[in-house]
């Protein structure tokens, strides 16, 4: 018995070394990150309270917090689409011809009361369920732009110009439809969004849980990249620069379209920012409202992560140009 003890101890030591050799698990990394963060808080205490850094962390936290409920809603929807709604449903609900399905999906986007972060996982789920890419991106673009919450916010922000609500609705729906049609033709070689595969034999609720946890962690992680970018630009660009750029309509449209991409304000708040940019023409401000929900730094990060980088590098410029041009035309006609 006595001579067995060292052998047992040896085997236990071997077990431990084996565990270490296999590498640190992600749970260990997780704990290490938290520990470093807490220590850094005390080491960097002063640096974190400089006004610019404090403003950055506040804006960063604000975007993440504000987006979290919309993200959660988006994931609940995307999970239901992935697990509970049979693929046949979409085949029956949408016209078979993509040319016709694109505007239908664009209008359908109007019923999802969220901002842009929530519609990315939903659009990805639609594509995985066999919805053609054209209608899926039309939904992706229209959902954050023309839903009732956004339209009411727009009417409140522009009390003197009720036509702004109509102009926004038309500009965003036309943008979504045009990009949907174009993407149906030119996005042919874009790969389907990476999908999460639940293990075989898992029950329906088990699949829902796995898909939701995976989609949520991924979408939230991608949102963080976008929030960090938007917070940086928000703090770095002094908005007072804009005071000198409002004169010319064309320059105004270009300036505010770019600003919409860089600021990445939630589509439910952008109307109030646009209303305050009084030095710009109404058409330029319409461009701000049409571009913002369709393409901004936060969305580009989320789309690149969800649909792949090849998707984002072509889709973002296409959407940007389409939205700016459509807004200019709609503005010239209606405003």
């Amino acid at each position, binding site marked *: 018995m006595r001579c067995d003890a060292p052998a047992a101890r040896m085997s236990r030591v071997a077990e431990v070394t084996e565990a270490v050799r296999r590498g640190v698990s992600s749970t260990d990394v997780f704990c290490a990150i938290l520990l470093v963060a807490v220590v850094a808080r005390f080491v960097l205490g002063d640096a974190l309270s400089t006004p610019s850094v404090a403003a950055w962390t506040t804006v960063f936290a604000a975007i993440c917090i504000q987006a979290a409920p919309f993200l959660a809603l988006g994931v609940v929807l995307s999970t239901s689409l992935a697990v509970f709604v049979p693929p046949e449903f979409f085949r029956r609900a949408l016209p078979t011809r993509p040319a016709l399905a694109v505007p239908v999906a664009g209008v359908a986007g109007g019923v999802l009361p969220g901002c842009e972060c929530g519609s990315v996982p939903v659009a990805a789920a639609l594509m995985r369920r066999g919805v053609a890419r054209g209608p899926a991106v039309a939904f992706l673009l229209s959902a954050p732009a023309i839903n009732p919450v956004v339209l009411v916010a727009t009417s409140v922000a522009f009390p003197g110009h009720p036509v702004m609500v109509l102009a926004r609705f038309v500009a965003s729906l036309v943008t979504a439809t045009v990009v949907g049609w174009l993407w149906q033709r030119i996005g042919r070689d874009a790969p389907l969004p*990476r999908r999460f595969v639940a293990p075989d034999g898992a029950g329906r609720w088990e699949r829902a849980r796995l898909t939701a946890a995976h989609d949520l962690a991924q979408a939230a992680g991608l949102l963080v990249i976008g929030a960090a970018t938007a917070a940086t630009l928000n703090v770095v660009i002094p908005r007072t620069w804009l005071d000198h750029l409002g004169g010319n309509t064309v320059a105004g449209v270009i300036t505010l379209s770019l600003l919409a991409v860089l600021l990445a304000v939630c589509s439910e708040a952008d109307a109030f920012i646009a209303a305050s940019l009084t030095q710009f023409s109404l058409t330029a401000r319409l461009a701000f409202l049409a571009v913002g929900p369709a393409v901004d730094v936060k969305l580009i990060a989320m789309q690149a992560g969800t649909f792949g980088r090849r998707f984002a590098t072509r889709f973002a410029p296409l959407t940007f140009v389409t939205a700016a041009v459509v807004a200019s035309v709609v503005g010239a006609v209606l405003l």
Partner: protein
Amino acid sequence: MNSRTQAFVLLLFGGALLRLATTDALLRYVRPVARPWVLLAGAGLVVLAVWSLIAQSRTRPRSDDEVADAHGHHHGTSRAAWLVLAPVVVILVVAPPALGAYSAERLPVSSIKPPSRQFPALTGTDPVRVSLLDFYSRAAFDAGHTLTGRKISLTGFVLRPEPGGFQIARLVITCCAADAQPVVAQVQTTAAPPTLDTWVTVTGTFGGMSASDATVPVLRADTVTTIRQPANPYD
């Protein structure tokens, strides 16, 4: 990232949201109307995370890292999920303050359009408490008709000293701190201006628009009281 760590990350994020939603710290970042939604999202995340942890403890333990490797298509997503720890650390460990003078200074001043052009008479006894946004709206879009003859009490943070007083400001937010816009008022007083970012309540009478900037309304101050930052620092 294995699915256990993923559950921990979601648990922390949900926990951070719940913690915020149950305190006034939430109002440093978003509007009060967001509270129930943040609460719901936080609770949902925690439930999902706990459900995942329970389900995993029931199944046979295994290294999910290896499973993910075998499937091959989880890598990009696993890396992104790590970033969720950033807002968790910012919310729980750094706990950034509300935006103040630094941000107000860098944003265009008082270009806000009031939500309504109806300005009913101020009710209540003097001094009547008016938000800085309401004060500005009544001054700029109604020529201060409803302000004249009343004693007004305004609350804001000190933005900058000026000859003959100082300016106070308040940030107006629509969704979250990322869309903040300042409203500013000029306080005419002989008292020494408090330091930047100090919160004050000023009582006085409406004094027209500033001579130096026609978009800034003036309050001729009788009293200036230093206060603590209000629970909701934004208008």
